[in-house]
């Protein structure tokens, strides 16, 4: 028996809850479940032996090992580089610290596969500009460095991934209560002892958590390995999945291999995130005070200038040089010509922006896809966050889990899951259309939106909504007049957190594109593969401009909002 009075509140809650569950199940849960289902379920029964057979195939096994090697090397390298630079810019009297800190964060913005392309141009064994320069002027018979190698891949990944550790350690060092170190100093400890006994143990959780993030990212990383590894037959898990699916046009055997590899990737990622959660929850020894203190600064003395030059050289070599190379190559008439004024022009840029259909389509596709995914995910995210943060319903833990799942599910896995779910087997066939990329983007970026919106909703105290209700507002009116206006900044943040990364997205769309549905990332990558190096570089240059401009605009815009 239900009364008139009970219905309104009941109805709204039910509608929101139902929609939230439906969206997450269809977009996130089904694709991921299908991966596991296809990996472990053969001919109607559970079959672990077949999984073992696939893993023990030489190619698959090698890809697994490669993923581990590259992830391990990248993690170690990035952790050393990131921690060292973080210490330099927070705890020493290095000149221009603020500028340096900003520069060290730039790689966050830059797509690493574009960086990999630049390094290919610089250090490929025969054609690389640096290698050629040395062979020409110093009479070396072979290349000085071969970028098509494990070391090359790891070096490039370190350049683009070390900010994960850098930013975590900077944060910890800046927020650390200086009295902890000062009291050690008063007790007579020298600076070296303090660093070893106090500072390092205290920031260790931040270092480890950043390192694990890098490991997660590197293991599932597609772009760099795709650009630099394929030449020498170095595959990791994502590139092998891509190669199999792409070459066989979705044959059963390749999909099986793909799903098994994807399942391993998901399991590894889950393990890493679990470890990270453990470290973070145990590592907060109440040392980190909320306020910003002025930490103790080490005087570098004689090392001040050399270290400054070292940092400047690092930035020049890893950030400026590759970027300049991309723009210069993008201006060449033909790849291979020397950089002289007569060989350089803006023709490529004009061509890909106006006349060349492939790149024009790609830019249009990326912008519309990114925009649509961002808008849809923003609204879905605010609704699902509302259920998770504000509603007292049973089973919302499942919603939270489903929403955050894509954080531990790498892009190539999401793409594979989306192929399994939406290519006609279950009644809907989106394969080879732009819609399948949209669905995959929504799944991939939902977690971003949930994070931003949940954070905003936590700020909206329940009593604000209750106050509206006693004033005579229905549930809908209270949502419209109080909740939505207050979470608008969170929604805006979610929009840009999705729109900007989607512009440079490669891992997902490379698995899903059709000739007319290339994204910017796909176009850059395929043009490069097809030997259209100058056009690829020109498009990469334009992508860099769009991404950096977008980032700066957002920072200015949202930064001002936060102050006002």
């Amino acid at each position, binding site marked *: *028996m*239900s*009364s008139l*009075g*009970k219905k*309104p*509140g009941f109805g709204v809650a039910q509608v929101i809850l139902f929609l939230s569950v439906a969206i997450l199940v269809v977009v996130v849960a089904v694709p991921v479940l299908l991966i596991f289902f296809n990996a472990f379920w053969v001919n109607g029964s559970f079959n672990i032996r077949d999984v073992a057979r696939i893993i023990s195939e030489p190619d698959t096994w090698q890809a697994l090992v490669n993923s581990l090697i590259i992830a391990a090397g990248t993690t170690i390298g990035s952790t050393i580089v990131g921690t060292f630079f973080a210490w330099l810019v927070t705890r020493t009297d290095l000149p221009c610290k603020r500028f340096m800190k900003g520069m060290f964060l730039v790689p966050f913005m830059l797509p690493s596969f574009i960086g990999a392309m630049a390094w290919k141009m610089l250090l490929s064994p025969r054609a690389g500009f640096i290698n050629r320069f040395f062979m020409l002027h110093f009479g070396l018979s072979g290349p000085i460095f071969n970028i098509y190698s494990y070391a090359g891949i790891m070096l490039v990944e370190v350049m683009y991934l070390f900010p994960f550790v850098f930013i975590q350690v900077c944060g910890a060092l800046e927020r650390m209560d200086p009295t902890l170190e000062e009291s050690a100093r008063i007790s007579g400890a020298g600076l070296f002892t303090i660093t070893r006994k106090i500072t390092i143990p205290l920031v260790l959780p931040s270092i480890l958590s950043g390192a694990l993030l890098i490991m997660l990212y590197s293991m599932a990383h597609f772009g760099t390995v795709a650009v630099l590894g394929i030449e020498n037959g170095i595959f990791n898990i994502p590139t092998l999945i891509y190669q199999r699916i792409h070459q066989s046009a979705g044959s059963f055997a390749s999909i099986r291999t793909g799903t098994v590899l994807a399942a391993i990737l998901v399991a590894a990622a889950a393990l890493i995130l679990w470890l990270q959660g453990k470290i973070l929850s145990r590592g907060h020894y109440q040392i980190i005070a909320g306020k910003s203190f002025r930490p103790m600064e080490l005087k570098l003395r004689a090392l001040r200038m050399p270290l400054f030059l070292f940092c400047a050289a690092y930035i020049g070599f890893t950030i400026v040089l590759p970027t300049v190379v991309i723009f210069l190559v993008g201006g060449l008439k033909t790849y291979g010509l020397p950089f002289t004024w007569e060989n350089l022009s803006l023709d490529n840029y004009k061509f890909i922006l106006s006349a060349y259909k492939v790149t024009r389509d790609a830019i249009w596709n990326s912008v519309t896809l990114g925009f649509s995914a961002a808008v849809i995910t923003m609204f879905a995210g605010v609704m699902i966050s509302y259920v998770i943060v504000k509603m007292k319903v049973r089973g919302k833990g499942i919603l939270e889990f489903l929403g955050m799942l894509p954080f531990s599910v790498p892009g190539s896995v999401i793409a594979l899951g989306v192929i399994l779910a939406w290519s006609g087997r279950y009644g809907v066939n989106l394969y080879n259309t732009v819609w399948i990329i949209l669905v995959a983007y929504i799944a991939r970026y939902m977690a971003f939106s949930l994070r931003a919106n949940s954070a905003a909703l936590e700020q909206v*105290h329940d*009593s*604000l909504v*209750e*106050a*509206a*209700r*006693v*004033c*005579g*507002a*229905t*549930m809908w*009116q209270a949502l419209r*007049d*109080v909740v939505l*206006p*207050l979470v608008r900044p969170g929604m805006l943040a979610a929009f840009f957190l999705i729109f900007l990364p989607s512009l440079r997205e490669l891992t997902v769309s490379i698995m899903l594109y059709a000739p007319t549905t290339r994204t910017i990332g796909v176009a850059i990558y395929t043009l490069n593969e097809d030997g259209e190096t100058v056009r690829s570089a020109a498009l990469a240059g334009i992508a860099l401009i769009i991404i950096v401009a977008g980032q700066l605009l957002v920072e200015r815009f949202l930064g001002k909002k936060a102050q006002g």
Partner: protein
Amino acid sequence: MEELIQIEGVAKSYGAHRVHKELTLSIHRGECFTLLGPSGCGKTVLLRLIAGFESPDAGVIRIGGVVVSDPAAGVNLPPDSRSLGMVFQDYAVWPHMTVFDNVAYPLKLMKKSRQELTASVMEAVGMVGMKGLEKRLPSELSGGQQQRVALARALIAKPSLLLLDEPLTNLDANLREEMRFEIKELQRKLETTVLYVTHDQEVALAISDRLAVMDERGKIRQTGTPWEIFERPADPFVFNFMGVANFLPVRNEEGKYLVGNGSQPIPWEKPEGGAKDWAAAFRPSDVKIGRGGEGLRGAVRRASFLGAVMDYLVDVDGASLRVSAETHEAIAEGLMFEDGEDCIVSFRGLHWFEAEKLREALTASAHNNEGVRA
């Protein structure tokens, strides 16, 4: 007197935690009624049940004769159809709206004409002393001003019932005192019924026409006027909750009532009842301290000068009591004691409680009385 709110046999639990069982209470139209109890006793839950944010598991709630909650009949009106006003502990002023828009919101929902709306808002804003600040955003207001906005917003639709959930807790002491008189003043002027929830017995005594004292388990121990509650406490819990309390243990030995572990018989009215162990309850201000005359012999263990009053800790046969004396009276009568001096204490009034019941009441409140005593 007409009853505006009737609560009959209301029960509410959260999982295994039972907040209320069989709670019955009625509030008269036009009175200022306070629910007083220690934090965590369920008084806020009761308020939220009346407002409609929570629904009872059993029982009936009526507002103005209309059944708003009756789970047995499947009735539970949502908060927006109960026409109430409510003020929250954290003000709950909408940060994205100006003072004017905050106060105007209930009328906007009623689709009042612009003219009528502006007139009402200006009147309400004036009533709470916020004239001239209508254009401000809540972030530009102090806590006290925000609470005035919340009050104006709660009153603008002229609700028959105004619910106040610890509205003064977040304000500083001076402002709290000022605001409680203003709330009382407004309530008298508008003849609204007010249900006020607090753990502060001073506020409760100051503003209530009637109040109910609740214990930790959500049980109403006593309902009555402030005077009744203070002077005729129904049980030791109420007595203890209403201010600093002394409990002097007294034992019945063959018809004689002896204090503490000594042999001084009590020289005043005897308790009625057959129990063996008793407690004589009184407040520091109920005790007279002197150097002679009738009373109990004791010794001053600690004398503290607190400005307007002297505070003595007196030892009587192993029992200790707090005694206060006005400083200049004490000086005039030569009653400035020093540590260790002998004294005589007598009482202006006291309450008898059975020791057994007192123990129950005190253990119940022992883990939950922060902020309760002045």
